[in-house]
């Protein structure tokens, strides 16, 4: 029983980590309708910049947690303004190709700057210890991830449900033309949402770095997982992403526990099952 409880904590922690990584992707897809395949690369930059900051300049995880997402957000701003904006009229295929191409460019830039060594981010000493839950030892940092995941989810919910910005975003989700007809500068909304997406990706990189590690092609591995979570949760729904992240996290943890050889297959099996039963994902809007 203790073992199952412990695995549940593992699953929730891993699930919320997936949520932290995916929520930016989900937000951007929901509002802009752009499937940002460079999201994984932004996540990677977040992790690498945080590594450079903690290993060489400040030694402080907290400063890295603050600065690194901002750097990635600036990158997102440049990408949106210069590259993405002209493609809004061109349809989804060109956006997919653009962001996919960017992913390769970013990959080579990262390997040029940081090389091909395996790196990691040191967590602050307060969280580097272990604590006991259900009679099992857990790294304290995993529990911190759970707390951060919940805070992010609550914050995103609050912004979406309780603020004017959230109202515009929700309206934009439903009908972009009507929103712009009502006098909202939809271009500005797009830019800001994309920046927030970058911010969240960078943030995810810093948070996930100490657990998932930093290594060449990390972004593609993460992108696949993020896409699975996105599809299961339903496109563009934050609540769906949260539920899907937790579902995938707990499901994968238990499948590793019970059928370790099948774990990779089972995740995609889960995705297929969800899509068969609910083609739009768990919380997805009906598409047309």
């Amino acid at each position, binding site marked *: 029983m203790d073992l199952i409880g412990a695995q549940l904590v593992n699953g929730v922690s891993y699930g919320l980590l997936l949520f932290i990584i995916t929520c930016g992707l989900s937000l951007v897809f929901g509002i802009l309708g752009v499937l940002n395949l460079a999201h994984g690369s932004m996540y990677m930059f977040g992790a690498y910049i945080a590594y450079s900051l903690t290993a060489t300049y400040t030694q402080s995880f907290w400063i890295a947690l603050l600065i690194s997402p901002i750097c990635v957000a600036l990158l997102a701003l440049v990408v949106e303004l210069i590259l993405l904006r002209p493609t809004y009229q061109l349809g989804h295929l060109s956006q*997919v190709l653009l962001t996919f191409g960017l992913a390769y460019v970013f990959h080579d830039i990262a390997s040029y700057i940081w090389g091909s060594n395996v790196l990691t981010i040191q967590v602050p000493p307060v969280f580097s210890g272990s604590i006991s839950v259900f009679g*099992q030892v857990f790294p304290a940092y995993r529990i911190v991830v759970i707390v951060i995941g919940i805070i992010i989810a609550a914050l995103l919910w609050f912004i979406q449900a309780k603020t004017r910005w959230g109202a515009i975003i929700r309206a934009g989700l439903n009908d972009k033309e009507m929103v712009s007809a009502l006098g909202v500068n939809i271009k500005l909304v797009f830019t800001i949402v994309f920046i927030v997406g970058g911010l969240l990706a960078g943030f995810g990189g810093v948070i996930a770095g100490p657990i*998932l590690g930093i290594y*060449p092609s990390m972004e593609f*591995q993460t992108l696949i*997982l993020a896409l699975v979570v996105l599809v299961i949760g339903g496109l563009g729904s934050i609540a769906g992403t949260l539920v899907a992240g937790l579902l995938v996290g707990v499901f*994968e943890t238990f499948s590793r526990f019970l059928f370790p*050889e099948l774990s990779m297959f089972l995740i995609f099996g889960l995705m297929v099952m969800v899509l068969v039963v609910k083609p739009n994902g768990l919380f997805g809007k009906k598409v047309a």
Partner: protein
Amino acid sequence: MRIFTKGWMDVKRRLSKMFSFILVLTLLAACGNSAINTSSNEERNEASQQGESAETIKIGSILPFSGVYASLGKDLSDGMKLYFDSINWKVEGKKIELIEEDTEADPQVALRKLRKLMDQDNIDILNGAVSTAVAYAIRDEVDSKKLPYLTSHAGGNDLTRGKRSDYIWRSSFSSWQIGHSMGEWAFENVGDKMYIAAADYAFGREVSAAFIEAYKNAGGEIVGEVYPPLGNNDYSSYLTTIGGVEADGVYGFFAGSDAVRFVQQFKQFGLKEKFKLVGSGWLVAEDLRETIGNAAEGTFASTFWDYNLETEENQAFVKAYEEAYNRRPTIESLEGYDAARIIAEAITVTKGDVSDSEKLVEAIANVSFTSPRGEISFDKETHHVIQNMYISETVLSEGKTENKIIDTIEKVQDPGK
């Protein structure tokens, strides 16, 4: 306005279809390393570009300079160049030309590059291959063209067993040597109950199978096995399971980023207090330990070379390498260094004549010397290197971890079947 809205809805309708297509596309691209690696690497050594072809010996090198194994390829290459530098790129009065090609660790690419090396560059000797899949892929081509090939890393057992060839010799290691050498030692020094955790790919499976075989023969009991996928990003679930098991130690076979995560999380989940961690040298490799940090302390590993080997040859090698490249050599650097020396010594024996493959491979077979890793020679039956295996313990020294050699298993010979 209306038309515009309709168009938008249309796009949305196609979105779900498009999405599945994209997902497949991404998966394909991300799974095959080849798609990620875009650069094509072709280096020629400047010092060796002059000179007539008759007076030049061309050595082809197929190594991964991009992709996940890029750092291994770089180290192998640097090790080779260090040795050739030390003999001024000359053997028996002839110039050595090293032609390096990037395999991207992809068998298809490797085969293409090999054909380029053979048809365009007319190389006399081939060496390299980090990925065993690459070594297997080029095996038939090398064999039929009678090109002497010295495998300087790829460790798949079968290359010197079922897939043995007259022209293929291996100076690095076999999976069996790595796993088997630890089996008996672990039984005598760690305990009689072990749990196995190894990455689920050919190398991980082969090494752990060899370990299990030796450990059971010694009288030990394997209480459980788990094989997480290669490139697994989170070991929490496996480690929690292992935490509930009665055992003396855990044998872990992981390399690269997997090793970093496994060893770190092994400590974070409190397993270090319960079990001894044993594994191969790659678990606590020279280039990973700084990233792993203090979590690596107390790990026992089997390896065929270590930075801290206290022989004269090794200290000289380490010193020369650090002077040349300003960083510590890794086990791959040593492999490259030794491969270069084996090739050079074989050519010395043939008096600089590389036209006859048969003579050249015979010369390779008879090479034996004291390498930084200890005495090495070739098993003429299997074509595989006979070498010492070392057991290292990772200890803390001045706030950093170092591997310390605590035991030597002399002259380990692969059984060849």
